[in-house]
């Protein structure tokens, strides 16, 4: 009992900070989502679930959810696959390993806004290097390609982090199963399929959860590169919510949308957890 109290006493400063910086904003946003509070008319009249129902009824909100689902699937799958391949390559004996590590880590170290600006100039149809080399290509101004281009830029940045985590995972794996597989005459693909990937499952699960959350929150790249256009082709949900709060000045509506997003994110994380980590 005494030990328990002491533990609580030691943990309480940290817990208090956590309540102040996490629980309070979350609680306040939840409270706002049941009101009609806006910057122009700041009142806290209770409206129940109306803001949630209004959000669900909004065509363009539903559209942004669907666009985000497609975007998250594309970026998470691509960054995990590419990151895994990069990690496998760097796990082998290759010359100039230090340089490769350095080059691979660079995208991760640049702020997303910086990444957006760099790629904006590279992809510029009139002034960009790609257009100079291969002729005019409209990567961001054509609704057919804009979302894929955005996903490509995102994957370019995220892959380095994924590769580093995979690399750390590969290095921490026990040697014995690999040696046993080699003795049994297993091929490279068989080792990959039946030894490496199963042993890396916890790492894959953590990366899936982390990358999904990161991609759902994508906002900076849309802000810098497309502003949600052309049309609504890159209108991702985080950017939609931001506009509701700061252009529409509707904090309560934005809070309701953010909670819908949080709800779906939690379900996804829960499913990943159940399927991968528990197994």
């Amino acid at each position, binding site marked *: 009992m005494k030990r328990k109290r002491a533990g609580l006493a030691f943990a309480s400063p940290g817990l208090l900070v956590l309540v102040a910086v996490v629980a309070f904003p979350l609680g306040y946003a939840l409270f706002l989502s049941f009101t009609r509070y806006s910057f122009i008319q700041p009142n806290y009249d209770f409206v129940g679930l109306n803001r949630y129902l209004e959000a669900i009824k909004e065509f363009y909100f539903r559209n942004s959810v669907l666009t985000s689902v497609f975007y998250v699937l594309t970026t998470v799958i691509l960054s995990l696959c590419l990151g895994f391949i990069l990690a496998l390559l760097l796990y082998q004996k290759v010359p100039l390993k230090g340089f490769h590590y350095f080059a691979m880590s660079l995208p991760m170290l640049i702020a997303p806004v910086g990444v957006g600006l760099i790629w904006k100039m590279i992809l510029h149809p*009139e002034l960009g290097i790609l257009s100079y080399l291969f002729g005019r290509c409209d990567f961001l101004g054509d*609704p057919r390609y*804009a979302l894929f281009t955005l996903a490509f830029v995102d994957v370019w940045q995220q892959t380095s982090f994924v590769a580093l985590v995979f690399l750390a995972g590969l290095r921490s794996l026990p040697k014995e199963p690999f040696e046993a597989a080699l003795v049994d005459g297993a091929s490279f693909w068989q080792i990959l399929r039946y030894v490496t990937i199963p042993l890396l499952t916890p790492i894959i699960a953590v990366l899936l959860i982390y990358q999904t959350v990161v991609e759902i929150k994508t906002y900076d790249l849309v802000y810098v590169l*497309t502003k*949600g*256009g052309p*049309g*609504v*082709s890159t209108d991702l949900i985080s950017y939609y919510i931001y*506009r509701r709060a700061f252009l529409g000045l509707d904090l309560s509506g934005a809070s309701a949308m953010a909670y819908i997003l949080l709800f779906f994110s939690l379900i996804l994380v829960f499913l990943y957890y159940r399927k991968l980590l528990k197994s």
Partner: protein
Amino acid sequence: MKMKKMLGAVLGILVMWGVCQAQQIVLRVLMEDIPETWIIEELLPLFEKETGIRVEFEKMTYIGMHDKLVAQLLAPVNAYDLMQVDFIWAGEFPAAGWLEPLEPYVQRSGFDLSPYLPSMLDLVGYYQGKLYMIPMYSYTMALIYRTDLLNRPDLQEKYKALYGRPLMVPETLEEYVNICKFMTEYAGIPGAAMQGMRGDPNFLEFANYLFAVGGDFVDENWNVILNSPEGRKALELYVENITKAAPVGALNFTLDDTYRIMCQGGAWSFISYWWMLPNLQDCPNVAGKLAIAPVPGGSGVNGGWGWAIPWNSPHKEEAWKFISWVESKEIVRLRALRGHAPTRIDILEDPEILAKYPFYKDVLPIIAKAKKVPIFAYTAEMEDVVGREISLACTGAKTIEQAIADAAKGLEALLKKAGLLR
């Protein structure tokens, strides 16, 4: 002993310096990082010498300014003592009660409002009859075009042969779009560098087209009149120009992109902010080959920034002192001689300034005749909603009729939210 004395002296100096610093008032201002700001910054030592008040500019790009200002305006005490307000926020900020009414300051100090262009005072001065801002600079939109291409004999001949009329500065929007398509086909460069990115860029550009064909967003009673034959015609011509006579990628272009393209000589014309003209004269490819004209049809979109004092400013009187100094005739003249975009008639007609910038004689009627887009609490959201529909029409995802109808519906909902419509 010697060491102790030295330490004492250093400490004494530090304390004195601290006291001096504490006594001096420092005005903090969030400013857009553009030439207009740099010009004023150069003159700040004059203000400090005159008043003893130091002014610090925190500069940033336009895209982040609104969010930063809103966060400060919601706080009990603002980190900025005064601010510059874009006309897009000139309805939102006063409607939210975030700006200090300036009439008492004007009356107390005898500040003269009469030299200001009425169109500028209407845009970034008054909101619902009350003065909240003092016009700072103008960015009314106009047509900027290449005279070398317009006067090229082979192009003139070809145009006359094709259309039976001379190639000259367009007076109607249809003629403008026609010349843009002609230039794309026969001059070898796109006719119009267009800012088609969804939101603020394409909304403002489209508004010029709308005004050019005699249309508008709302009537004097805030009834939405966008879904009209004029509205549909404006959008039809806008879509035609951006799909047939604009550079590749124009659907994602902003003001910066169009400037760079014009600077490199990559297009015949653009409908943009008039202050682009002096800036473009620094580009070797087009210097001396550019001219300015009103948006075909007569009126362009009026744009500008105003000075304002936030309700929660810690130094309101000092902020007003700065506004009345920076907007005094003497300082505005100094600013204008360095390239500032004036909002005062006396400066636009000043012989010395006209000698340096002769095109100001063309600019004065452009600003005077300019029309404003609806300025109300949700102007920024209106740009987003209407801009989305324009962009959808340009991509072909919606028909002209559907896009205009949906844009009008969205605008109506915002006016109802603002309490301007029942």
